[in-house]
């Protein structure tokens, strides 16, 4: 008989999902992802446990590692919050990376154009322009989505390349620092255009901005009429229309804010970290944000926590590069984790049952 055992295993819908399942499933998924990636590490002749331990120490084992983890977590939080807002409305914004680049460009433009402005004007101005440009980059694919039902997954993704190449054009071309030894970088920002740091580390005020964004997003979604509309629209678009909600306007607004948050991440990166615009300012924060939002089940507070974990994963990844691993290992790890986390989703709504006979034990 073919596949006798297959016939004996099947999924059954859960009636209710217990709280512990919501936590345990993603954690177990990550563990399985680590085991899976471990197979590949073994083939390179290394012990995966050693590698993971090394990564953990690199990311969380020292004050420096910890502060770097926080530094990485800032753009992850902002982009993660951004995509989570769009995901709430079932808008699959894969374009946070491009929105981040456009936000970075907007902030840079102001910083280079008016370097003499006082910080209390320049920094909020850069923040606003970062938000605006990121927002517009989110809005562009939202318009055909809202009016013509053009699939936003593809358009947002494609616009990433446009944004990245556009920024490349600027830093290789018109915005290139004449004193930059021909590197693809702009001139350094003036003192006034640089975000203050918190204590003796690279952790900048962007952390506070991210926290404020988290609180705002939470309050909007939980307590405002508009947040209610977003929750309803995400659960059922037809119900939103039935209740007289302006679905089209909400798509545009949500995509604008979603892009805007990623744009702020671009602003804090150029203003707080690189202190100039340069080629490759983001190692894929906008993509990692998708994993983070998913893992956090779109909950703003959970996004903060998961961002720290993934910040640690990045920093840990850098630290194992010194012992002969390529950065691709980390990308593979992330991929493996996402794969198993998304696959594990089925266990949230379903449970596995063995055998069709005999009923419950």
């Amino acid at each position, binding site marked *: 008989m073919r596949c006798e055992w297959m016939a004996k295993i099947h999924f059954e819908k859960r009636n209710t999902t217990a709280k512990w399942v919501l936590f345990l499933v993603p954690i177990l998924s990550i563990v399985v992802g680590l085991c899976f990636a471990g197979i590949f590490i073994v083939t390179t002749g290394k012990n995966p446990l050693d590698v993971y331990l090394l990564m953990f120490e690199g990311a969380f084992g020292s004050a420096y590692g910890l502060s770097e983890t926080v530094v990485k977590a800032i753009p992850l939080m902002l982009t993660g919050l951004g995509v989570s807002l769009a995901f709430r409305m079932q808008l699959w914004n894969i374009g946070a990376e491009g929105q981040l680049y456009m936000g970075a460009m907007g902030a840079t433009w102001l910083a280079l154009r008016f370097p003499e402005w006082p910080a209390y004007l320049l920094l909020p101005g850069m923040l606003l322009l970062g938000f605006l440009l990121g927002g517009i980059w989110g809005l562009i694919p939202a318009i055909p989505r809202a009016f013509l039902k053009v699939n936003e997954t593809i358009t947002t993704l494609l616009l990433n390349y446009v944004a990245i190449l556009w920024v490349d054009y600027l830093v290789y071309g018109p915005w290139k620092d004449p004193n930059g030894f021909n590197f693809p970088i702009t001139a350094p920002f003036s003192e006034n255009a640089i975000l203050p740091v918190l204590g003796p580390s690279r952790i900048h005020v962007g952390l506070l901005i991210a926290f404020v964004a988290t609180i705002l997003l939470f309050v909007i979604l939980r307590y405002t009429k508009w947040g*209610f509309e977003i929750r309803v629209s995400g659960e059922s678009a037809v*119900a939103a229309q039935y209740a007289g*909600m302006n679905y089209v306007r909400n798509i545009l607004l949500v995509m604008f804010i979603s892009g805007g948050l990623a744009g702020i991440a671009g602003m804090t990166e150029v203003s707080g970290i690189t202190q100039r615009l340069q080629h490759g300012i983001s190692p894929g924060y906008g993509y990692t944000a998708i994993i983070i939002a998913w893992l956090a089940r779109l909950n703003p507070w959970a996004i903060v926590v998961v961002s720290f974990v993934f910040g640690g994963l990045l920093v840990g990844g850098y630290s194992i590069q010194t012992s002969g691993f390529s950065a691709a290992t980390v990308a593979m790890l992330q991929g493996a984790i996402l794969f198993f986390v998304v696959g594990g989703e089925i266990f949230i709504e379903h449970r596995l049952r063995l055998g069709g*006979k005999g009923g419950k034990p």
Partner: protein
Amino acid sequence: MGTPLVVMRDITKSFPGVRANDQANLVIHKGEIHALLGENGAGKSTLMSILTGLYRPDSGEIRINDQAVELHSPKAAVERGIGMVHQHFKLVKTFTVAENIILGLQTSGEYYHLPLIHNQIREFCQEYGFRIDPAAKVWQLSIGEQQRAEIIKVLFWGAEILILDEPTAVLTPQEATELYKMLRLMADRGKAIIVISHKLNEVLENTDRITVLRGGKSIGTVITKHTTEQELTTMMVGRSVLLDVPVKEQYHGDNILTLKQVSCLGNRGQLAIKQVSLEIAGGEILGIAGVAGNGQSELAELIAGIRSLEGGEKYIDGTNHTDSSVRTLIKAGVSYVPEDRLGTGLVPGLNAVDNFLLKSYQQSSSWFINWRQAVESTQAMIAKFDVKMASLLNPVKMLSGGNLQKLLLAREISADPRLIIAVYPMRGLDVGAMETVRKLLLAQRAAGKGILLISEELDELFALSDRIAVLHEGEVMGIVDPQAATIEAVGMMMAGKRMLKQDAV
């Protein structure tokens, strides 16, 4: 009657939280039409899903031709000669009838000869006395013809036991009569027919024996000739139910809704409502009869503002609302109980409080939602309308069908509307819940509201409506007085016959 063809003994099947079948028994003989009768949630579908190999029972035994069998897949069931015609046909619309039949044909190899199959299908049709063109594409067929195609498919696959799930739900009364004639012919040739139904009259008229399920248990099997409507209802509900609706007093106020020659498009861009003119007065129930898919849902959406008008005018309480948005119409007092309760009328993943707020959140002028007040209002509403739920904070998708409908009606009625559009409000409800919905609608009528009642149950329309308009392909075939008109006359109009002038109200 000899050895039974199918015996299902002590079948038990549990899902998390519910026991769908509890030691259910069913015995089917060759050559009979056997009805499986029960309220929604009585376990009819589960029992049949077990017989067709979709679910496996937790315990119990299935015997076919006195042989114990294990049906661990739908394929195994088909091999045993069990075929099912689902309520939603499993046909590929862009394929021809023949192609649909070949699809999943167990006996064919990698190659097939189409003309040969065409001939075989024609022979088959002749044997059972129906006509269908094997080369016709399914989307070109009427619903009745699609159903026939589905039946042929199942027979072609070698079914000896034919199960039909609510087969007349989508048919006109005339088509339904045709269907039962066909089924009788098949039974006479030795097939066993099982019909899942909750329509008492239909079952009483057309079947040989009836097995009643209640709460997952088989209550008993009766011979149709020797039973009555009253006995069956008592078996289904477990208590006797008042089947007749009390005579209503006539009360007519001013016109609440006026439609003047309105038209609108359907989902596929075709004209779904063509120049319809209707009026509903305060304290009046206007029933809309028609075979499903003849513009009923479009008409409801047009009035609620979800679908925009292609032509004509719409007035609510004398004010022109032809181009008003959904939100404006809600404010003008239009309540809408849509066909799709869970998904459109209620948001499945959100809780009762969220769902209660679905429309009323717009009333406050603040940016924020007053959750404490919302919880209190929801609690009051749930108590008043007797909606049963474990917790206010559970997603409403966990509620039973009857409670969902009560929750939806409670919200729409609490808004104190002028006009209530109710689309298939009793579909899928058990007898008890139907009683409640009926009472709620009549109470609203007594309160002077206008009610548009769209239904596929003619009995229900005749019992509740002050006037009945019949829709066919988006046009009103006629408007009749239920006191004077016959079901046959309405049935003719449902099939597309325009009403004669002298019958007009």
